[in-house]
């Protein structure tokens, strides 16, 4: 579990109860380890160690934002220079891989409300327990399977080596429920973002997030509402895979998807094996579910081609 302790000790040896004592696994055939806890601790440690590099880009943005605040409050925000953005991102890349143990621990505790929240989210299955996962079989082959085959375990996992501080858990919980809460809560995750300096955030983010949340409507543009807003016509989108590109064409009539076809198959292999996908899109009036686990390569390419085409239709 990613406790605050392991956060601060990001580059120190992780909690001794989790890691094989002393050196290595050679010859160690001792008992079972708590892989979930170890994994979470590793993730947070790596993030913390690399955080300084990411932070430089964030700081730069924060200072830019501070300078820009007066302009923003009167409604005019100078256009961001895209090259600057790209530059910052590349600077982050450039320093890859040689994070030294000296970087992380110094700054992380101060910078990390979102880290703490993340750690707590990682740490506490029970924060969202019960709300977690419900299986709804859709394919014919699923019919013999109990609908709740994959149910959230109701027992608190014995994996919490160090219980996360309750305040941190609370933060994670509020982050998780933010979308259904009132406006101030909606803006809260943004305020804690490392890209926004604290003094600036309340001024600019609150007005932005208030209308949607206060209206009691779903905060963001729902895709189904967007579906109704599709313009009629033919729209093209392209998806990329390691085997090549796929171009999809979507026909919209009366705001609905009439047809979706693979208009160009530029993959090294035949597209015949994903030929049935277009029909699926029409049936569901959307590019399938939100995401598909295990779908790779060309199937993904088609998915993104459709997403791209539907974007054009808006």
């Amino acid at each position, binding site marked *: 579990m990613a406790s605050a302790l392991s956060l601060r000790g990001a580059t120190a040896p992780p909690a001794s109860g989790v890691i094989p004592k002393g050196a290595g696994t050679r010859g160690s055939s001792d008992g079972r380890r708590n892989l979930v806890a170890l994994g979470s601790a590793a993730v947070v440690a790596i993030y913390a160690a690399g955080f300084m590099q990411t932070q430089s880009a964030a700081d730069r943005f924060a200072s830019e934002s501070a300078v820009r605040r007066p302009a923003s409050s009167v409604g005019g925000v100078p256009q961001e220079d895209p090259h600057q953005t790209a530059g910052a991102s590349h600077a982050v890349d450039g320093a890859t891989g040689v994070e030294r143990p000296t970087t992380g621990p110094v700054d992380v505790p101060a910078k990390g409300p979102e880290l703490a929240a*993340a750690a707590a989210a990682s740490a506490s299955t029970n924060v969202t327990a019960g709300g*977690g996962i419900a299986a709804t079989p859709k394919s014919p082959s699923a019919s013999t399977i109990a609908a709740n085959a994959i149910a959230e375990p109701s027992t608190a996992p014995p994996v919490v080596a160090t219980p996360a501080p309750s305040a941190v858990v609370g933060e994670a919980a509020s982050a998780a429920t933010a979308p259904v809460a009132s406006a101030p809560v909606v803006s809260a995750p943004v305020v804690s973002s490392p890209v926004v300096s604290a003094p600036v955030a309340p001024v600019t983010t609150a007005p932005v997030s208030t209308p949607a949340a206060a209206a009691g409507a779903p905060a963001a543009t729902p895709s189904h509402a967007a579906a109704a807003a599709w313009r009629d016509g033919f729209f093209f989108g392209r998806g990329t895979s390691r085997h090549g590109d796929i171009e999809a064409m979507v026909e919209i009539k009366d705001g609905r998807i009439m047809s979706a076809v693979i208009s160009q198959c530029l993959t090294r292999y035949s597209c015949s094996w994903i030929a049935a996908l277009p029909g699926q899109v029409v049936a569901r009036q959307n590019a399938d579910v939100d995401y598909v*686990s295990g779908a790779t390569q060309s199937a993904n390419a088609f998915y993104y081609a459709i997403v791209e085409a539907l974007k054009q239709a808006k």
Partner: protein
Amino acid sequence: MSDALIHTVVLMGTVVSVHVVGHGTSQRARRERQRGADRALAWFRRVEAVCSRFDASSELRQLSTRIGTPVVVSPMLFQAVQFALAVAVDTNGAFDPTIGVRMESRGFNRDYRTGADVRSDVSATGAVSFRDVEVNAATHTITLHRPLLLDLGAVAKGLAVDMAALELMPFANFAIDAGGDLYLGGRNADDAMWSVGIRHPRDATQLLDTLHVTDRAVCTSGDYERVAPTMAAPMDAAGDADAAKVSRDHHIIDPSTGSAAHHVASATVIALSAMVADALATAAFVLGPIDGIALLERHNVQGVLVTPALERFTTS
């Protein structure tokens, strides 16, 4: 116009998509989302630069050139290897990160970026295993006791997804899709839980199931994913019926036999961390349905395994 941000690039040999559900259409809000997506994607490049088996300059490959001596490594490589070894120990080697050379010998040595064949100079002398790797948390070193090439494929992508998720956590509502390895944060644009289909292992047009998740990683290991290049030709004609034939020689190796594992066609794990989900899905795939489910239950994660005969096993 939608105020969501969806940013898709090709990284780590797959299509990586970062999706930040928007709250606000102001330039500032858009810029914040763009910055967040950029930082999230930067983590993929960083993880790749450290953990790639295909890049001779990667820290992982550099490590494989120094046999028998403790090497001080970056926190990222240390943690990734330490975690992979812990999974190996826990599964008695059903999951083993030292299969790199065997992966190469089976043709999994093509750099997706250049298409060029890449082969390390590591020559395997006899069977190596995770027991030939030593990590020392006190000195932050890794020692390879025999010539071997680590393969962090089942860990690195999940790790990158986790890093990206931490980066996007301030936005609360977001999704990361790295070639079917997913992390779903908060809720979707409809203010509902994210719906995640599990691809049917024998029919790309079907979903095995649909899950509804929030703040969870979902990873699937399938025998249909990366077919060995020697077997790629049948994909030309791969209709649905042929998919099963194609899958005979895939990328998930059973370390005990050195060849592809065949007891499971698809293993999906839902966990708090994509690295954990990815590694456990791979391990469960190798272990087979009974031991695989036992592994997942022992670690309190949810999952579903499907056999080649399409029999389904789920955690209770």
